[in-house]
C-alpha cells in the first residue's frame, strides 16, 4: 500500500513541477460577459450619479473602503506583507481618515498564483463598497484578479507587479482600471544593461533567474539590450525558489567567464548567490548585479563580505525621504521592511487617497460620492507626482514609474556590517 502511494506521490510531484516549470502562464479565462453592474444607487436628492461606471456612496459615519490583494502567507508572504505595511505607513499618517470618513482597510491573501488572484479578485469585486485596491504582489495574481476587478468598475494599483504584459495594450492581460507604481521590467532591465555595458565597460554577461515571471522577464530584457549594445551573453541560467546551494550553477556559469552576472531575483536565493560567488574559481573578478527584489535592509548582511561592491538597480529615492519612511515603518511594526516594494505601496495608496479627494462629491450632510470612471481617469492622468519612489507620471496603459525614476546603488562594507542601511545609500548612478 505505502510503496504504491509513494510512487504515485513522487510521480505527481514530478508532473506538477514540470507543469510549474513549463507553463507559460496561460492567459486567465475571461469568459464572463461584460455586463454593466450599476453600483447600489441611492436616490440622493442633491446628487445624481452620471458616471459611466456608477458611483460609490458613503453615508455619513460609514467608512471609505480601500482593499488590498496581496500574498501575505507562504514563501512570498514577506513581500506582500511589506506591501500591506508600506500602505499602512501612509494610512497612519492621515490617521486612517479621508474626507471626514474613517478608512476601512482590509484585503485578501492571493497566494502568488493566478488562481489565488482569481479567488481574491472574486471576493473583492463582489463587495460594492470597495472603491480602490492596492494589489497585487505577484504579476500572476493580477492576471487572475484584473478581469473581475476591471468589470466591477474598480481601480487597482500594484506596488510590485513588473511584468511588461500587464501594461501592454496589445496583450490580453491588459485591463482597464489597472495601474502600477512598480517599474515595468522593460525599463529596469534596459537601465541595468546600459549601466553594465556603458558605465562599467563590461562586455560579457551571464544572467540567472528563478523561474518567476518577474525575474525571467527582467533578465530577458537585460540580455537582449546587452547583446544589442554589443556585449556577449555567455549563459542564461535559472535556479529554483528554495535552492540553497548555488555552487554548481555558479561553477557552470564560470566556464563561460562572464564579466558580470545579473541575477534580478529575491531573498534568500539572491543572498546565496552573492555569498557563494566568491568561493567559485573563475568568478573572482566578476561583478555581481541585482535588481529591486534584493534592495532590502537585510540583503547585505545575509550575503556577507562577498557582496561588497555589487550593484543593485531600483527606484531613485532620496536618502532623507527613505529614512523617514523606514523610521515610521520600524516604529509601527517593530522591524524593517522585509522586501523592497514598501515605498511603492506607500505611493500607491497616497495616489488613491489623493484621487478620491479630487473626484469625490461631498454632500452637506457629509455623504461622499466617488464616481468610479472619474477616479480611474484621474489616476491615469497623474503627472509629475512627487512620490517616495521618485517622480511618478502615469501613461494611458497604467505604467506610473518611468525609466527616469530609476537608479543604481552599490553595496558597501558598512551595509554588510549593518551600520548603514542599504536603503539609505545615495544613488551610485542615474541614467
Amino acid at each position, binding site marked *: 500500500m505505502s510503496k504504491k502511494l509513494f510512487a504515485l506521490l513522487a510521480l505527481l510531484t514530478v508532473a506538477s513541477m514540470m507543469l510549474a516549470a513549463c507553463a507559460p502562464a496561460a492567459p486567465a479565462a475571461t469568459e464572463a460577459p461584460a455586463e454593466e453592474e450599476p453600483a447600489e444607487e441611492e436616490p440622493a436628492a442633491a446628487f445624481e450619479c452620471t458616471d459611466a461606471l456608477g458611483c460609490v456612496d458613503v453615508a455619513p459615519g460609514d467608512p471609505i473602503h480601500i482593499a488590498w490583494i496581496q500574498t501575505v502567507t507562504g514563501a512570498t508572504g514577506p513581500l506582500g506583507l511589506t506591501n500591506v505595511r508600506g500602505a499602512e505607513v501612509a494610512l497612519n499618517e492621515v490617521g486612517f481618515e479621508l474626507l471626514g470618513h474613517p478608512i476601512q482597510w482590509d484585503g485578501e491573501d492571493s497566494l502568488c498564483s493566478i488562481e489565488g488572484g482569481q479567488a481574491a479578485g472574486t471576493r473583492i469585486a463582489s463587495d460594492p463598497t470597495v472603491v480602490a485596491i492596492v494589489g497585487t504582489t505577484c504579476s500572476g495574481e493580477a492576471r487572475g484578479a484584473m478581469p473581475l476587478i476591471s468589470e466591477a468598475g474598480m481601480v487597482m494599483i500594484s506596488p510590485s507587479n513588473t511584468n511588461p504584459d500587464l501594461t501592454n495594450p496589445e496583450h490580453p492581460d491588459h485591463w482597464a482600471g489597472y495601474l502600477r507604481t512598480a517599474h515595468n521590467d522593460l525599463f529596469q532591465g534596459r537601465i541595468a544593461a546600459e549601466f553594465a555595458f556603458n558605465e562599467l565597460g563590461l562586455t560579457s554577461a551571464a544572467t540567472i533567474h528563478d523561474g518567476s515571471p518577474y525575474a525571467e522577464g527582467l533578465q530577458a530584457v537585460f540580455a537582449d539590450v546587452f547583446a544589442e549594445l554589443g556585449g556577449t551573453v555567455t549563459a542564461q541560467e535559472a535556479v529554483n525558489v*528554495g535552492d540553497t546551494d548555488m555552487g554548481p*550553477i555558479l561553477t*557552470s556559469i564560470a566556464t563561460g567567464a562572464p564579466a558580470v552576472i545579473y541575477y534580478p531575483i529575491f531573498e534568500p536565493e539572491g543572498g546565496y548567490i552573492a555569498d557563494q560567488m566568491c568561493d567559485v574559481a573563475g568568478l573572482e573578478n566578476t561583478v555581481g548585479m541585482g535588481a529591486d527584489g534584493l534592495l532590502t535592509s537585510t540583503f547585505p548582511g*545575509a550575503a556577507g563580505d562577498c557582496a561588497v561592491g555589487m550593484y543593485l538597480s531600483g527606484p531613485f529615492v532620496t536618502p532623507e525621504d527613505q529614512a523617514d519612511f523606514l523610521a515610521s515603518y520600524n516604529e509601527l511594526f517593530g522591524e524593517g521592511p522585509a522586501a523592497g516594494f514598501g515605498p511603492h505601496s506607500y505611493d500607491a495608496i497616497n495616489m488613491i487617497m489623493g484621487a478620491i479627494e479630487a473626484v469625490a462629491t461631498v454632500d452637506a450632510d457629509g455623504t461622499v460620492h466617488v464616481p468610479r470612471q472619474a477616479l480611474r481617469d484621474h489616476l491615469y492622468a497623474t503627472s509629475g507626482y512627487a512620490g517616495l519612489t521618485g517622480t511618478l507620471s502615469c501613461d494611458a496603459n497604467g505604467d506610473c514609474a518611468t525609466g527616469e525614476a530609476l537608479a543604481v546603488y552599490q553595496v558597501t562594507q558598512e551595509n554588510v556590517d549593518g551600520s548603514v542601511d542599504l536603503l539609505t545609500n545615495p544613488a551610485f548612478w542615474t541614467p
Partner: protein
Amino acid sequence: MLKRLRERISLTDVFMWAVGAFLLYIIIRGSIATLVLGKYSARQWFDIAVSGLAQGSIYALIALGYTLVYGVLRMINFAHSEVFMGGAFTGYFAADYLNQIGQLQSQPVLSLLIVFTVSILTSVGISVLLERIAYRPLRRAPRLVPLITAIGASFVLQYVFRGFFGSQFKSYPEVDALQGNFTLMGDFTIGKIEVLVIISAAVLMLVLYTYVQRTKTGKAMRAVSEDKDVAALMGINVDAIIVRTFMLGAAMAGAAGVLYALMFRNVQFFMGFFPGIKAFTAAVLGGIGNIPGAMLGGIFLGLFESIGPSLFLDGLGIPAPYQMKDAIAFTMLVLVLIFRPTGILGERLATKKA
C-alpha cells in the same frame, strides 16, 4: 511458462519499466555527451560534488527525523521541517549574541558548541511538545488524521515564529575561523565550512546509529517499531520510547539547522519548508523507516541535485539546466521506486509492514 510469466507481470509494471528505461537512456546519453563536450575541468567536477555532498549531509540529518518517527509510528511528521527551522532560529539568537560580545570570533569552538546546544535543545523541546499536544491524543486514530494534524502543526509553528520574530531574513554572523579553504592537492580546494558540515554530519549519524543499535533504549526503539503492542507486553514503556524517538530526530534536525545556517547564513520562518520536502524525499529514496537508508538517501539526493543538471542535461544542449534540478531529483526518486519500490535500503521493512 509464458502464461505464468504473464500472470506475474502486469501491464503497469511493463509501462513503468519502459518509463524507467527511457529515463535511464536519457541520463546515460546526456552524461556521455557532456563528458565528450569537456566543458568542465576535473576541479570543477570536484567543486560541484563537494557542495552536493555538504547539502546532502544536511538533507540526511533532517531525513533521519522523518525516518525515525515513521519507524515507530508509521506516520509522516510533516512538522519536522519546523523543528529544523526552530533550531536554526534560536541558534541564530545565540550566535548573534555571542558575536556581539566578541566571543564568537575569539573562541569559535566553544561558541559553536554553545550554539549547537541551544539549537538542539530548542528543537528537542518543540518536538516533545508537538508529540504531546498534536500526536499522542491521536495515537489510535486512523492514519490520515495525524498526517493532517502534522501539516496543521507545521503552519502553526511557522506563523508563531513569524509572529514573534518577524518575516525578515536574519543573517547568521560569519565565523572568521570558518572562512577560506583547505588546499588538497594542486588547485583542488575545499571550503572549511563544507568540511565542518560533512564531518559533523557524519559523526552525528554514526552516534545515532550506534545508539539505536547498541544501547538498551535503542533496542527498545527497534522493538516498538516492530510491534507496539507486543513491546508493551514485554514491559517497554511505549510512550516514553516514542518521546525518545522524537527527541532523537529533533536533535539531528537542530544540529542540521545550525550547519545549514553556517553554510547559507540565512534564517527565516519559512526556511524549513523546502529542506523539509527534500529531506522527506531523501527518506523515501533511502527506504523510509530505515536509518542508514535515510543517510544514504540524503547524500544521494544532494549529489544528484548538484551533479545531475550539469552531467545529464548540459550535453543534451538543454538551456538553463539548473532550473530542472528539482525535477532531476524527483526523477531519480521515481527511477529508484520503479526498480526498488521500497527505496534503496527499504527491503526489511517491506516484508513486515507494507
